[in-house]
Structure formats: structure tokens, C-alpha cells
């Protein structure tokens, strides 16, 4: 009897310790995340300008987003187009570069480092750089493609700005390369060896060993890449612009969801309630996509060693 209470007492002390250890983070996410998210939901039903004007408008903001605001379609279109192209492109190019550096040549580590280096360059520095390289008048890229008799205005005309932006993401290929490399590392070498003995060619080894064994990594990469690309705002540095007009691109051709939220909330007329409503729509889309991705993850084969 006595022993039992001692144990339960010890248990409750331990529970308390556990709570205390996690308490800072619990307070943190309550105050800085959940409370704020709820606050934003609250704002989304108001005409709130960041000052004292706070008029309840019901669902008007949401209705406006889908019925009146011409930018809605543009930013969703741009963002999805960007995501749909860059996410698979990154995965495939990452895979190819990973294959390229996944051999035991001398000095291969130097190549790996060089391939990854562009990933660590800060966005602001990259923005400065792309603006210079792709400048239509004095940019070096026109000089390079000029060798083939080509010329483009890149970011300066609507039709070429999105392809140019997507082209710049190629330089970030190192990010997905290292994830693939890690995935390769986790595949037991014996699998390949026995496959080779069975006479499997390179395609078969890829199709039946590498890809299936890397699915958790691909999946993780896919989810984070989709969530990340839906929130892209790299155009704020590439396109520049003052408050309210930041990062729109020529004829809104590079206008993304997050940039629009920023412009609505902090630029010009200050439509914080409206921007909050837009933020919630983005949140719901991200939530749904994540849900769909997890629903459809039958193809993901988790290793059983945990």
C-alpha cells in the first residue's frame, strides 16, 4: 500500500517535471501562434485598417476576395503555376545532380560543396544578383544568350518573367540534392549488389530499389516544398518596389499570395482585416493540400527499423 502511493507520488512529480520542461514552448505557441492565429481569424471578419477603424463586416472580406478582387485569380494562378513547376523540377534536378555526385571520384566532395553553395546565399544577395544578371540592357545573361542570337527582356516583360524566375530556382538545386544523397546513403549496398547479380540494369535498380527506398525522403521533401513554394515571396527581393507595390512584377506576372497579403496589410491603404482573410484562405489551402498528400501516401514505404 505504502509502496503504491510512493510510486504514484513519484509519477505525479515526474508528470509535473514533464509539464515544466515543455511549459516554455507551450506558453510560446499559445501566445505567439495560437492566440495570434485566432486573432487573425477575428480580424478577418472586420474592416480593420491597422488604426482605430474596426467595423464588423461578416463574411464580406471573404466574399470580396472571390468575387471582386481581380488580383485573387492572378496570385493564385501564379503561385500554383510556380509550385507545380518548381517542386517537381527541383526534385528531378536534385535527383540527377545527386546521382552525378554519388560516386567515388577523387575530389567529389569539392563538387558537392560547390553544388550546394548557391543554397546558402541569402535571398537579399541573390535578389541583387538576379536583378543585375537578368537586366535587359546591361545584364550579362543577354550577352551570354546573345552568342546564340537570342535576346530577352527577362523580368521586364510579363511573358518572360515567370520562366525567368523559375529558371533562377535551378540554382537552388543543391538543397534537394543533399536530401537525395541522404536517401541514397540509407539504402543498403547489398540490395544493389544482389540486384546486379540478378542482372538488373541501371533503370531497374532506380525503379525497383532507389525510388521505393527513398520514398520517405521524397515525401518529406514534397510536403515541405509544396508548403514552402505556396508561401514564396522571393519576388519581393528580385522585383523590389515600394510599399504596396512590392514584388508584383510586370503586369502582376510575378505576384504571389504572400506578397499580396503583405501589400494589403502593410502597404498603402492598410487592409489588415482583408489581408487576414486572405491569410486564412492560404492556411486552409495548405491544410487541405497537406491532408491530401498524407491521404495519398500509400506509396511511401517507411523503414521498419524504428
Amino acid at each position, binding site marked *: 500500500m505504502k509502496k503504491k502511493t510512493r510510486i504514484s507520488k513519484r509519477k505525479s512529480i515526474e508528470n509535473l517535471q514533464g509539464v515544466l520542461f515543455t511549459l516554455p514552448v507551450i506558453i510560446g505557441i499559445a501566445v505567439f501562434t495560437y492566440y495570434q492565429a485566432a486573432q487573425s481569424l477575428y480580424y478577418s471578419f472586420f474592416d480593420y485598417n491597422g488604426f482605430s477603424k474596426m467595423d464588423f463586416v461578416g463574411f464580406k472580406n471573404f466574399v470580396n476576395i472571390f468575387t471582386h478582387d*481581380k488580383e485573387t485569380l492572378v496570385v493564385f494562378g501564379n503561385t500554383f503555376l510556380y509550385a507545380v513547376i518548381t517542386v517537381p523540377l527541383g526534385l528531378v534536378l536534385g535527383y540527377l545532380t545527386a546521382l552525378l555526385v554519388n560516386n567515388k571520384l577523387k575530389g567529389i566532395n569539392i563538387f558537392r560543396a560547390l553544388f550546394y553553395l548557391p543554397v546558402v546565399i541569402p535571398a537579399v544577395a541573390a535578389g541583387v544578383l538576379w536583378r543585375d544578371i537578368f537586366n535587359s540592357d546591361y545584364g550579362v545573361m543577354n550577352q551570354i544568350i546573345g552568342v546564340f542570337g537570342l535576346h530577352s527582356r527577362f523580368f521586364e516583360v510579363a511573358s518572360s518573367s515567370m520562366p525567368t524566375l523559375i529558371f533562377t530556382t535551378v540554382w537552388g538545386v543543391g538543397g534537394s540534392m543533399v536530401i537525395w544523397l541522404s536517401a541514397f546513403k540509407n539504402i543498403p549496398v547489398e540490395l544493389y549488389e544482389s540486384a546486379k547479380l540478378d542482372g538488373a540494369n541501371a533503370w531497374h535498380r532506380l525503379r525497383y530499389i532507389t525510388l521505393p527506398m527513398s520514398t520517405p525522403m521524397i515525401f518529406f521533401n514534397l510536403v515541405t516544398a509544396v508548403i514552402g513554394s505556396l508561401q514564396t515571396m522571393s519576388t519581393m527581393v528580385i522585383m523590389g518596389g515600394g510599399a504596396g507595390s512590392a514584388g508584383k512584377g510586370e503586369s502582376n506576372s510575378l505576384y504571389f499570395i504572400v506578397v499580396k497579403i503583405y501589400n494589403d496589410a502593410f502597404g498603402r491603404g492598410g487592409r489588415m482585416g482583408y489581408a487576414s482573410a486572405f491569410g486564412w484562405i492560404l492556411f486552409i489551402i495548405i491544410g487541405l493540400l497537406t491532408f491530401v498528400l498524407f491521404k495519398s501516401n500509400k506509396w511511401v514505404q517507411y523503414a521498419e527499423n524504428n
Partner: protein
Amino acid sequence: MKMRIKSLGIVLMAALLLMLPLLSGCRVEPPAPNPGDEYEVRDSEDLDKNAALELSIMTSTDGKERKIVEGLASGFNKEFPNITFKITPLSGNIYESIMGYYNANIMPDIFLNESLTMLTLGAAGTLLDLSPYIKADTANGTFNANDYYENFWRLGQKNWNGGQWMAPRAADQVVISFNKLKMIEAGIDLNPATTKVKNGWTWDDFLEVCAELREHFDNTGRGNLYLADGYLNWEANFNAILSSWGVQYFGEDESLIDSAATRSALNMMKNLVEKKYVASFNASSQANFDGGQGVFLLHSRAASLTADILKEVYKTQIANGTYAIDDIFDVVTFPLIGANPKVGAGVAGYSIASTIDATKRDYAWQFLKYMLSKDGQNNISQSGANYPPMRKDMADPFADGVKWGEGMEKFNLAAYTWASQPGHNYVCPTEFVLKRPAFANDLIFEVSSMIGGYLNSPALIGSTAANSKLNSVISDCKDNLEYWAFAA
């Protein structure tokens, strides 16, 4: 892990719902009630000249604006010696800065403003209506609104017609600054008796001069360089051009931008770009007037500021006595377009925060009043930039007791006040934003995008591609203007 993710959504929603009750009663309270236009003012005569208090002023800290405020402060201290000033920096745009200060309840007492942002900030309730002071001081004879150009004075008013939200600092209108050396080099006639380049010149005159310059540039290996930094995406410029062509932006409940006049005006602007007269305004192409390469600058920038910039560019030639600054550049009026020409204008100025403490309020008004006085206006020219004064009695830059022409006697400074002189009713503020003042900057942005979209398009005027681009930018602009004016 897998299972957990699936229940995340439910968990998240539950947590958010739990948070919602916390929000009740969480309305945002304004820092102090806006006194409206019904508040007590103390008569100027009753103010204690020795009152000791601090006024905070938010202004741009780069360039000359800070010097202007410092100059005004020291001039003001001659009358009120014990009032000190704390200058808080403005960075980025005025609206955002004020929003930050407002929410943190640390509003500056006085702040830099301009006629468009003022509309939005006023609608947000942050600006003090100065009418009671104006009324009282008009009655006691220490202030007279008729001293100022009516066309500029009203740009400081509620919706540009009503209570005073801002005291305009200067009467800025767009002029053309030009590089004399380049003109002479190209053989342009600048003889005062015969030149085309004189106040009141027309658009055709301008184009003829451009054609000559272009030819000269092309023949001297400068085919890539534009002649003018045109700032055609800046509302003061595009609005004057569109309005000269008779473009109407709004009817009662629709936008009228989709018109033949708009098409003509846009084609005229595009023509300037195609002929390489005026640089379109993407970051890359520019004439680089400020670097001593371009010939024209279409802007309202004060002549003293341009002088400072070009003195730096030509410092060796000035040092060795080859040129004086008045050999290097001069200004002339914005060319007149058509039968009903307009010249762009907009003003910057200073506003008093609606949150200001009642005791400080009286002195803040005295400060603005000083800024608007002859002495204050002279002070601005001498401490920072020789903007054209707000006062009608100071129009002549070289008159006695008027300082904005001091040291610049050889310049055609009359260009800066030309369009607002009696008989020239050319001053043209960006009136169409009044359709929805709270979204003034958004409305401007849409028109600016329309112009940018067309001018930056590589298709040549008259081609099918250019025409379809023209139609699409105009129709987009119409939709967007209607959105901001009626739906947003």
C-alpha cells in the same frame, strides 16, 4: 507519426476555437480620441513665449528634409526659445511608419506628409483638423489662407476640399531640368531671344529639340542612351499628360478610362520611349541625368538639389574653372500639351497628429504657422532646398526679402512658379483619387501599372501585338480602378 498527422487538423481547430473566447473584448482602442474640428484653441497672443516643452517631429532623415526641419526649429526658437524638438526618423513609407507609431502609442506630434498619403491617413483618423486654429488666427489677423496658392493650399485639406489636415511646405510643380552642356554640344539654340526652350514652350517644341538631340547622340556613339529621365510612372507626370489629352478616369459609378483619349495619350508616351527620347521606367533603362549623361529630367526637384548633384558630377571642371554651375544646367517649364494643357503638381507638408497633447497642440500649430510665414519659407530654402514657396507674395525668386533665388540669379527659377501664376491655370493635382480617397495610392498604382505595362511592352506602336496589349492594359486598368473605387 502517420496517425498523428491525420488528427492534427482536428487538434488545431479545437485549439483555435478555445482561443476565440479570449478575444472577446479585445477591440483595438485608439491611443487618444480624435478631437475632430471642435476643440478649444488658445489665442496666439495668449501663448507663453517662454513655455518649455518638447515637440517630436517625424521626418525623412536622408537628404535635406532633416536639415529643413532643423532650420525651421532654430528659426522658430527665436520666438519660442524654450521649445525643444526631437526628430524621429521616417523610414520606408509614411503610412507604415505612422501605423507603427500609432499602435505603440508613441505618435510624433508633427510629421512629414504628402497630399496623397494624407488622404489615407486622414481617413484613418490620425490627422488633426487645423480648422479651429485657422479660424481663430484669421479672426485675430495673424493668418490669412489667401496668402497661399489656392491650388496648393487645398492639397492639404480633407479630400482636398474641407478641413485642413496638412500645412503644405512648398508649392511643387513639375518642371524640366536640362543639361545645358549637352544641349550646346548638340547645337541646340539656347539664345534667350530665339530659343524654343523657354517657359511656356509646347510639346511640339520639346519633340523637335528631342529629335535634334537624338540625332546628335546617335552620331556620337550614344545610341543606347536615352535623352530624358521621364518618370512617366509618377502620378504628377502621367496625370498631367493624361489630363492634357482630356482623359476622364471616373464617371458616376464606373471608370471611363477606356477611351480614345487614353489610347492617344498612351501612344504618345510610348512614342517617347520608342524613339529613345524618354527612358521607360524599369530599373534598367535610364538616361542618367543625375550622372551627367542624360539631357532632361522631368521632375519637381528643387534646383538647389539638382545643383548639388551636378556639382559633384562635374567637380573637376568646376574646380578648374571651366564651368560654373549655371553653365551646366537650367530649368524650363513642363511642355504644354494640346489646347488644354496641364502641369503636374503635388505637395509635401507637415501634419499634426490627432493624438497630440492639448498643451503641445497650440505650439505645434505655431510651428506650422512659422513654416508658412515668409521667414519660415525663406528658412526652408536656405537650410535645405529652394522649393518654390507656398506664398503668392514670394513668387519672384529674386525680389527683396525673398531668398529662394539667392545665389541662383542666373537660373530660370520662374519655371517653378510659372504654371500657378495668374492667367496660367495649368496646375493639375491628381484629382481622380478623390473618387475613393482612402485608397488613393492604390488607384494611382493601377494607372501607373497600365502605363508601365504598355510602355514596357516590346511591341511597336500600331502593330497588332501593341494594339492588343493596349486594349488589355486599359481594360485591366478599368476593372482595377472600379475595384478600388467601388468594391474594395
